């Protein structure tokens, strides 16, 4: 019987304290422990990381690019959410 494909994992690395984990790529491993070790050996050879997350790729739910319009465009017109929308007299200084 053919071996089923080894599961795929997405790897996220925190490069420095104070920064968020960032997606760096993927790898294959039979289980979470091996995935974590493989992530360490593959993605942190040059001291790139202080913390690693591995997530089964099939556990990620992604938004559909076709929905981009309804998902993200409505936010673009809400310019009153940004500080530059409001005017403060120069004399008041930085606010």
């Amino acid at each position, binding site marked *: 019987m053919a071996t089923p494909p080894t599961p795929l994992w997405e790897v996220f690395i925190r490069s420095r304290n104070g920064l968020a984990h960032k997606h760096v790529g993927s790898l294959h491993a039979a289980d979470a422990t091996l995935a974590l070790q*493989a992530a360490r*050996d*593959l993605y942190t050879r040059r001291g790139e990381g202080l913390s690693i997350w591995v997530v089964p790729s099939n556990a990620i739910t992604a938004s559909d690019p076709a929905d981009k319009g309804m998902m993200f465009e409505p936010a673009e017109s809400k310019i009153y959410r940004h500080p530059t929308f409001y005017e403060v007299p120069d004399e008041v200084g930085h606010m």
Partner: protein
Amino acid sequence: MAEGSIKVAETPLVRYLLRRADDALILGHRLSEWCGHAPMMEEDMALANMGLDLIGQARTLYTYAAEVEAAGHDEDAYAYRRDVRGYGNLLLVEQPNGDFARTMVRQFFYSAFMDPYWRALMASPDATLAAIAAKAEKESAYHLRHSAEWVIRLGDGTDESHRRAAEAVAHLWAFTGEMFEADAGERALIADGVVPDPESLRAPWRAAIADVLAQATLAVPEGGWMQKGGRSGAHSEHLGHLLSDLQYMQRAFPGARW
């Protein structure tokens, strides 16, 4: 410029350092033989990382030996210009890679000893030794974890992997006794409190082995004859072949710099 093999002025400390360096170099060399041939590419990365750690440990230990010996030798003189009889590594680390089970069990037996050993050596009053140990301990802790995880998976994986893992344990067991030996010179260093007594690590080593092998559904071998000789240069036939690979360039082009 001297050609051929070097003559080492062996004080107990120099001999001690060379033996530990030889362990690390020979095992690192063995792991490097896997490069490009591992069972999965992710494991190619892991084996090379462990190999690099060990080669790095060997280099710092050789460099310190050179400083202590003060005879103008350097790391490469020790690595490339001593013959089989001058090498003092454990028989365990020179054993051929065999299949992946042999490689991982060998790594596990060695790392389960070296990790607590380095930890104990961190307390040495010799500041250089303590610093080398502090760096090496972090590396060996990872080697121990990685190899133990694999021993567990191979032991408790398929029938075939269980059979291979059991065979590896049975085959390599006889080479583990040597780790706890110390000759008169090393005994003197132990008495002076410079280095730990390997015998004191026997019980924790056995406990670590028993724990992991139990998880791997593998039996711990009982007693049996223990091979020794590596520390005094009485090696298996395998080491000579390893050295003819390792030393080929330095032997073929004496005096050349690379």
